[in-house]
């Protein structure tokens, strides 16, 4: 298989315009003869479903939640980047492109990132037109804030609920199309397989989560907007239901999976507090604009704090180590996420952690002194409330405690410039694909990418694909649908009849621990070898010792989880393989063997300037590695320096 990224010829800044012109159009009257399936209704999915329907296509949209408005995009807090340069601080499309490529540690595809920066400005216009109440200044114009990895102020925000407001904007556009009859919405419905006919994606198999009914849906194209796979770690900032199954099923049907080991560990989350913990809560990284990260300089102070013998306010200024400001004077607390996370791990590994020992302080004392509590409350009020609600401490009085947690997955289904996977007719948008963030995503860029793909990229590229597809779509009586339904039923029966002793959550927690210990913030060849063995053993035990209950034809939460965790058991192994293969450190992927004398990630551009795209070859078979070489014509590869 030769990977063809389909990146158009020509200068970077002209590629997308030229491509848009060269793509074939579907006549408005013919659009209604096509039907597309959109799986997932987060930013990418809701935006794509609404936009495709507005153009005249018939859309079927699916989500596992009870309403499309609940997709996990809703939880994004801090903001959305756009190269508007409203602040006159030197921003431009090229600078946003450059920051994103650099922030991703030079492991993303230039042309895709440039296009992302280009359409970023349209997203803000679109959202405002929908009634998204972005923050404004007294003159009535839009306000911006700064975010990690950038020296300009280009982040648009709606208090600490930017994701919510953008998602509700996309949801309102989707609702309008549902009312118009152009989108048929299937809530509480989960994708269990992709159906391929003549090599093309032509439909999906779903399970109704209330009745358990297995159904076939055929279409001319399928779009997966199903988010990331961070829940492979069990504990993450993802929602409880977020899962990797749609992408994994696509992978098993021939879609290559790219850079699976590129996972983002977010530096500012509320630390773990107990065994029963079900998820980790993120505190927006925008807090690092005003909060200062520190731990005590000495092990003795750290221990006294952990034992409760000292309070943070007892530690004198000169006994505090503001380690990010010390090590990275020019970016300070605003270094990219991977750098901030790794440094938190280092100081805790040294024994200078606070709280349970796996936490550092994020302190607003100085900001409150400087700006007053009112100003800080106006900026972060809801985040402070949330922190207090969870931890029962008041962050206006005492510093917050934070620790890194799994947050986002840069890896995902391999897609070409048109966002099409290696299965024709199967597209992947938003976090589900791999293309824009390289080895590390910058803050406020996930919302940008989800909406860029959904509103402004896929509606064009899918139109172009459909011009070569006949109007007639296959019947769901086709043998491929019947075969896929039978396979799904068999898998469910198998899961319901293992009759073992261990619950899904127990397996999931164990898997998560293996992944976090060996394939988390830092990785080694030996550890990864060990982890691969452990995951294989765990997977074997899963299929022989899983305890489930009930039947398929009812609301069965245990079964839902079992189906998802079964897929995570396979995906976890691929992540480990990918991390083992990539003998360099870049972005969120840190191999201890490859670091600079100062402990920074040491890339190996000579040998690893490629996208690793893995091909599934069968149950318990090794994956085939394909490489898409990354060619940088517009940025110079440097060692990222935020000093």
């Amino acid at each position, binding site marked *: 298989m030769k990977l063809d990224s389909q990146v158009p010829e020509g200068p970077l800044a002209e590629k997308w315009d030229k491509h848009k012109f060269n793509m074939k159009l579907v006549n408005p009257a013919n659009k209604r003869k096509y039907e597309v399936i959109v799986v997932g209704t987060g930013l990418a999915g809701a935006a794509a479903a609404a936009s495709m329907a507005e153009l005249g296509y018939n859309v079927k949209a699916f989500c596992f939640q009870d309403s499309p408005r609940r997709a996990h995009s809703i939880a994004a807090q801090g903001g959305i980047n756009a190269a508007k340069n409203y602040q006159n601080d030197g921003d431009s499309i090229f600078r946003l492109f450059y920051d994103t490529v650099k922030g991703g540690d030079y492991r993303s595809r230039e042309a895709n990132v440039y296009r992302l920066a280009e359409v970023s400005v349209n997203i803000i216009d679109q959202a405002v037109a929908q*009634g998204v109440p972005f923050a404004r200044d007294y003159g009535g*114009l839009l306000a911006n804030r700064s975010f990690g990895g950038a020296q300009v102020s280009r982040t648009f925000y709606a208090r600490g*609920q930017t994701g*919510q407001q953008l998602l*509700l904007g996309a949801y309102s556009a989707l609702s309008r199309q549902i009312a118009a009859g152009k989108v048929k919405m299937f809530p509480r419905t989960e994708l269990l397989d992709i159906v391929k006919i003549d090599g093309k994606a032509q439909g999906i198999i779903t399970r109704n989560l209330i009745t358990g009914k297995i159904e076939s849906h055929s279409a001319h194209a399928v779009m997966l907007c199903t988010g990331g796979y961070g829940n492979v770690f069990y504990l993450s900032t993802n929602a409880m239901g977020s899962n990797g199954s749609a992408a994994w099923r696509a992978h098993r049907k021939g879609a290559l999976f790219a850079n699976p080991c590129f996972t983002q560990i977010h530096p500012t989350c509320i630390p773990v507090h107990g065994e029963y913990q079900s998820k980790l809560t993120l505190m927006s990284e925008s807090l690092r604009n005003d909060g200062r990260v520190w731990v005590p300089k000495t092990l003795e102070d750290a221990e006294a704090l952990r034992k409760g013998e000292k309070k943070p306010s007892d530690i004198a200024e000169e006994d505090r180590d503001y380690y990010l400001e010390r090590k990275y004077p020019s970016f300070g607390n605003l270094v990219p996420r991977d750098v901030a996370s790794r440094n938190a791990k280092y100081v805790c590994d040294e024994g200078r952690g606070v709280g349970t020992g796996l936490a550092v302080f994020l302190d607003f004392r100085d900001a409150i002194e400087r700006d007053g509590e009112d100003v800080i409350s106006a900026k972060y009020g809801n985040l402070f409330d949330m922190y207090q609600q969870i931890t029962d401490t008041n962050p206006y009085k005492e510093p917050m405690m934070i620790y890194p947690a799994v947050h986002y997955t840069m890896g995902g289904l391999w897609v070409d410039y048109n966002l099409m996977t290696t299965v024709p007719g199967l597209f992947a948008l938003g976090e589900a694909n791999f293309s824009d963030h390289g080895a590390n995503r910058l803050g406020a860029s996930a919302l940008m990418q989800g909406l860029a793909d959904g509103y402004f990229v896929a509606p064009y590229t899918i139109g172009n694909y459909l011009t070569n597809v006949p109007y007639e779509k296959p019947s769901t009586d086709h043998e491929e649908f019947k075969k896929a339904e039978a396979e799904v039923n068999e898998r469910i029966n198998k899961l319901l009849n293992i009759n073992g002793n261990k619950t899904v959550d127990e397996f999931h927690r164990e898997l998560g621990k293996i992944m976090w210990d060996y394939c988390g913030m830092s990785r080694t060849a030996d550890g990864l070898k060990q982890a691969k063995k452990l995951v294989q053993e765990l997977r074997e035990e899963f299929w022989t010792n899983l305890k489930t209950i009930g039947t398929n034809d009812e*609301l069965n939460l245990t079964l839902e989880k079992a189906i998802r965790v079964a897929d995570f058991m396979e995906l976890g192994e691929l992540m480990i393989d990918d991390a083992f293969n990539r003998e360099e450190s870049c972005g969120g992927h840190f191999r201890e063997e490859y670091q600079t004398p100062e402990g920074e990630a040491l890339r190996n551009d000579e040998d690893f300037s490629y996208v690793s795209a893995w091909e599934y070859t069968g149950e318990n078979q090794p994956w085939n590695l394909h490489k898409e070489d990354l060619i940088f014509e517009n940025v110079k590869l440097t060692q990222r320096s935020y000093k």
Partner: protein
Amino acid sequence: MNLTLKIWRQKNADASGKMQTYNVTDISPEMSFLEMLDVLNEDLLKKGEDPIAFDHDCREGICGMCSLFINGKPHGPSQTTTCQLHMRSFKDGDTVYIEPWRAKAFPVVKDLTVDRSSFDRIIQAGGYISVNTGNAPDANEMPIPKDVVDEAMSSATCIGCGACVAACKNASAMLFVSAKVSQLAMLPQGKPEKQKRVEAMVAQMDEEGFGACTNTGACSAECPKDISLTNIARMNREYFGAKASSENV
């Protein structure tokens, strides 16, 4: 701490339900309420009993999927979502009653899970601004006074959980509907459709079987996002204004 739980069990929409008693032990005050239910469900599963179905997803108080009527209050004793309610709000030996949202327009699906698709249909009736993708002017072309956008934002923070309906003795959805009507009516972008919108959304609300508003304010008092009662006043004004000049009389 140890607690006695009285939980509503109902096999499906057609079955009749009843309260059932469970005991949980060694509950840490740091746990969230839903984590406490997770622990119970693991126990039930191990004993071969059907775990309790309840809706939840983000567990950070923003998706609006979790519900639960706890000791007679939606989302329990503190004004937050159930996922952000922590066990430190309870005392050792407490008996806790857990029921689903009760409203005709929110039929029970199973146990504590209800069907809130009526909210989606109200939004579909008009809770949007009609603008197609690509059809937008520059975002800074139309300045919007800060106080107006701040007020619109406060209305827009509604998470659609349905606590307002559960809190209301009439199961009225006025707070939910008015929050969306207000947000869009306050913003200049939403003005062209404001009359049509309020009429259509109110009509859909009535059709779904939500009750009437008698201004008791329970909805706002229990709202985890502090959506203000002012929204209802604003919607009433919008509605009367619309009806006075409406063609759909």
